[in-house]
């Protein structure tokens, strides 16, 4: 009877354990909060949540971006951090190229009191993840999602490390006009914001320049064959001077093989999605294809140091420009932290919004006065002898770029 009013050994253990955990949680919370805020130039760690598509259809863009970013973080931390006091702590989670999984991963990362969120290199999963960051007041930047609707759909905390698709479409349209091309055919796909909107931006810019779009085709990503589409292009008489498509691998190789196989010789204009060795490996079939991207991936000039460092870390050469843009994401974050002199999400967001002329590897990067897409030069590449050849770099006037609308 006397024992009835005494707590059992198990109960005492639970209570004790709970108390210990509560104290531990509180002290841990205190520490993290100090580290995260780290205001007034105090040393602290910037916790970067990285929701990256390490597997799935977007892995081709996110994996090299992460490699570049991690290389930058390692170099910065080896030097004692940004300004010798702000170290970088990466927390990486795989979103599996899925929008729902991107939201789940973003929620997990935001729960770990991150100061900065990196989202996948495409608008759809980035919107899913970015909306949570927006609510939490944490700045979010997409690896290289180039659809300009991305920041519009999310809000003022959402940015992209990429130029806008409207800007790259303008560069392609201007090239076509300068070359004297009068007619164009566009081929898009409703399966993603990237493949869906780019042909429309091109059409708007090309027609504003006086050109005519004589046909608009659509494909499903991953479809078995492009024979029907090629037959439709062949049926256009006279043949279009230029064919513009945002299709990327594995669809672009299939399309251009079918196109050239059918004897269609119109100039083909592509976008940054085809800046990969797969396109170059198409040899004669891809000869003369032009596309817009962030820069020329070549072991020379400013990129030579990047090649050396990348090779030392990963034991191979970078395969795509996305490894460079990932590193540049780090360089831009470095500029924001330097300006903020803080590890807090709010200070980094304010600094990021006002960044201007950050010297990246491919050129200067700005956000000030823009639409939260990176204001950066766009390289127009021509494939010659299975190699990337720079045709020119362009910075289209924002006033003449087609406007993005939700």
């Amino acid at each position, binding site marked *: 009877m006397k024992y009835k009013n005494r707590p059992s050994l198990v109960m005492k253990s639970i209570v004790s354990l709970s108390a210990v955990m509560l104290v531990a949680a509180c002290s841990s919370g205190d520490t993290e909060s100090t580290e995260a805020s780290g205001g007034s130039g105090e040393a602290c760690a910037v916790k970067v949540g990285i929701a990256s598509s*390490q*597997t*799935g*259809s977007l*892995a*081709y863009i996110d*994996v090299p971006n992460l490699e570049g970013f991690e290389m930058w973080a390692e170099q910065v931390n080896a030097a004692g951090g940004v300004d010798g006091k702000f170290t970088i702590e990466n927390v990486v989670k795989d979103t599996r190229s899925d929008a729902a999984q991107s939201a789940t991963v973003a929620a997990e990362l935001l729960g770990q009191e991150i100061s900065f969120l990196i989202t996948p290199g495409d608008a759809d999963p980035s919107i899913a993840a970015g909306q949570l960051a927006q609510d939490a007041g944490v700045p979010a930047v997409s690896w290289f999602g180039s659809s300009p609707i991305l920041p519009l759909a999310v809000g003022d905390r959402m940015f992209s490390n990429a130029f806008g698709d409207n800007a790259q479409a303008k560069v392609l349209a201007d090239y076509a006009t300068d070359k004297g091309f009068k007619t164009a055919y566009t081929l898009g796909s*409703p399966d993603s914001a990237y493949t869906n909107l780019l042909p429309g931006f091109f059409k708007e810019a090309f027609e504003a320049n006086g050109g005519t779009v004589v046909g*608009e*085709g*659509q494909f*499903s990503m*991953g*479809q*078995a*064959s492009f*024979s*029907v*589409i090629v*037959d*439709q292009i*062949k*049926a256009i008489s006279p043949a279009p001077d230029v064919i513009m498509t945002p299709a990327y*691998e*594995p669809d672009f*190789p*299939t399309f251009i*093989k*079918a196109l*050239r*196989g*059918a*004897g269609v010789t119109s100039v083909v204009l592509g976008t940054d999605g085809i800046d*990969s*060795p*797969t*396109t*170059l*490996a*198409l*040899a*004669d*079939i891809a000869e003369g294809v032009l596309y817009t991207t962030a820069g020329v991936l070549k072991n020379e000039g400013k990129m030579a140091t990047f090649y050396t460092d990348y090779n030392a870390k990963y034991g191979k050469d970078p*395969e*795509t420009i996305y490894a460079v843009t990932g590193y540049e994401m780090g360089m831009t974050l470095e500029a924001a932290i330097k300006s903020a002199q803080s590890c807090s999400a709010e200070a980094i967001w304010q600094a990021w919004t006002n960044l201007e002329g950050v010297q990246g590897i491919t050129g200067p990067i700005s956000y000030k006065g823009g639409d939260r897409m990176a204001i950066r030069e766009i390289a127009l590449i021509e494939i010659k002898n299975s190699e990337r050849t720079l045709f020119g770099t362009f910075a289209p006037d924002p006033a003449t770029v087609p406007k993005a609308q939700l």
Partner: protein
Amino acid sequence: MESLISYVVNVISLGGTYALLALGLAVVFSVLGLINFAHGELMTLTGYVLLAGILMGQPFWLAVLIAVIAGGVSAALMEFAAFRPVRNASGATLLMTSFAVSMLLQVIFQNGISPRGQAVPVPAWLTTSISVGVSQISKVQIMSITVGLVALIFLKFFFDRSYWGWAIKAAANDFEIVGLMGIKASRLITFAFLLSGLLAGIAGVLWVVQRGSVDPLMGFKPVLAAFIVAVIGGLGSLTGAVFGGFILSSIEIALQTWLPANVMPYREAITYTIVVLILSVFPNGIFGKRVQEKV
């Protein structure tokens, strides 16, 4: 007329590939009652082996042969390693196992090879076209049609004339009868996977040659199409698999050819709506068996 010729060529070309894929699924379903969703990854594996063969300097025909055999052997190994241990488990367990194998192989391809697609250099003669009347047909399509039809004719003889062909057909009707015929279930199941893998290998080669590249996720769309084809034809029906392949390809190509541009974004939705309409008329597929269960 030109558009009709193109239509027929495209339907036969795509339909043959779909039929081979669906037959691969149907053969395994016949003996194990399983839709093997890792079938697409066998195609992908075939693509990588083809690429390796070409990069190692093998003649194209030899690289193709090695790739197809690799598909068959891998399927048999898949059966031994993944499906045999759960053979007597429920259908749901088998299905989950096939999804697990599929995802495992995808991740292995992504991390072991590259998340990026790899261009497969096919001989230059395959990238040109020939004129047929007013139409032009690409040599890849001619190869696709030829290989597809030869494979289907061979399979017809195989199922009609050979011991193992009869056994698989018998299993499709009633698996228990096969046991009464004195055929060991294990051997028959392994053989079915081997045959299924060879079919995935042939379809994989056709797919890769047509598309010009191989990537870790390449198998997803084809296996989904093959599943739909198998359902249209009647799950487990070998004739239905072939028939369903050509039905699906004729729907897809017709919509892509003649659908107005402003409705084109709804093409896949319309395709699946037509499939549902077919199934509402033939609930067990066109060649499927009506299943009645005693209360």
